[in-house]
């Protein structure tokens, strides 16, 4: 299991994957918005999306788990 964590505080702008999707290294799984800037969250490893831990519009803090891959 690999957890993709937020590197900064911000709002979830879009969730780009669904549970069960296969993702590749570098694929954008979520886009955060912080200080009027969009920040893409990329998968560091390839895998299947096991859990999505934040929804569009949610506010997340640095270190919060965004997506869990298996």
């Amino acid at each position, binding site marked *: 299991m690999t957890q993709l964590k937020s590197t*900064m*505080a911000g*709002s979830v702008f*879009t969730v780009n994957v669904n549970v069960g999707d296969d993702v590749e290294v570098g694929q954008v799984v979520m886009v955060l918005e*912080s*200080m*009027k*800037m*969009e*920040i893409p969250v990329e998968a560091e490893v390839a895998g299947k999306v096991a859990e999505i831990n934040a929804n569009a519009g949610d506010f997340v803090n640095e270190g919060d788990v965004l997506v869990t891959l298996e």
Partner: protein
Amino acid sequence: MKKVLIANRGEIASRIIKTCKRLGVETVAVYSEADAEMPFVKEADHAFLIGPPPIQQSYLKGQEIIDIAIRENVDAIHPGYGILSENAMFVEQVQKAGIIFIGPDATTIQKMGDKIEARQTMQEASVPVVPGTDDGVTSLEDAKRIAAEIGYPVMLKASAGGGGVGMVRCEDEQALGQQFDSVKNRAKMYFGSDAVFLEKFITNARHIEVQVFGDYYGNIVHLFERNCSVQRRNQKVIEESPSPSLSEEARAQLFEAAVNAAKAVNYKNAGTVEFIVDESEQIYFLEMNTRLQVEHPITEEVTGYDLVEWQIEVARGNELPVKDQQQIKLNGHALEFRVYAEDPKTFMPSPGEITKLDLGHDEDIRVDNGYAENGKVTPFYDPLISKVIVHAPTREEAIEKSKAYLSTLNIEGLKTNLPFFTEILNEESFIQGTYTTSIVEDWLTAQKGETVK
């Protein structure tokens, strides 16, 4: 006008309060939970909490702000820049409540706020516009067809956008395909309309804008130009007035086009007409900002006028303090540096607590600051902490003075772009004054080259 509500936050709220105090005008601030400890809240005569941190739940709640204004018996609302400053519906609601809006009328804001309509208005007034679409583009297929006609690279822009938000440069058809839905979604989220349009991206261009002012008696003047070509993410970082390396002929054309643009919409209060100037000094209208701008202090420094005071006088129904263009004199050179909470190399946001804030102490240097030491820069709003404005008799002296002063500043607890200023001030194209809007991109590319070596 005895009491003004400021529907904004940070440095611009503090800036407006300063002039109001000098004029003996009472001030009312509104603030979100995230901003409760900000200096502007303390500086205002009265301050009211309007909601939780997200901007949609606080500073964008127009009706709630108007309700406070009515309850507090204010005469006028100053919108600052961004937030509700160019929201025509808000202006109408303010006026319906019997309150003066310190800015142009709703119709002008509507006309110039919709970039597609603004382009059409300018074309009718014989002001040249950047080649692009005259109507909104609704489908990706249409966007691809039009982009192929005008030629890549193109700028994909939100029709209702501003402040660099909702615009993306697309190098080719693939990039356009990737960005189209994103820009539409962003436009809808930030500006409430998903209308987008395309413009040709003019390479090696300068972003030069002209400050204009109008009153209710048909007087319209300009207060010279500002060069805002140092940008990252289409947002300005360093501005200067006047623009270096601009021929007197091109300068005169800019002033004439800006005044014509303002006359075409019977403009009142402070406004800025933005242009792109290409390598051969051909000028193109980009957009008009119907409000006070972040970079207004450099114009104040080179003209000696307080533009917030002018805004208040015009809103009071008085004639412009200076109506005769010949009386407005340019004095020296001014530079503005926007101190952002961000990584100086990647420009990624860096929210956090400011554990140390030393913005220098020199009575000759103007600092428009929004934060206090131990204040928090939150992820909810833009990253602007402070503005450093340096004025000197010549451009060379202004640059030298800036280098010396900026090196004394110290902000700790979060990353800031202070080191970036030194890098740009030492760039040959900046020193020569020949730089274009690609200066930051070129600097980044050069840096990557050095890393590879």
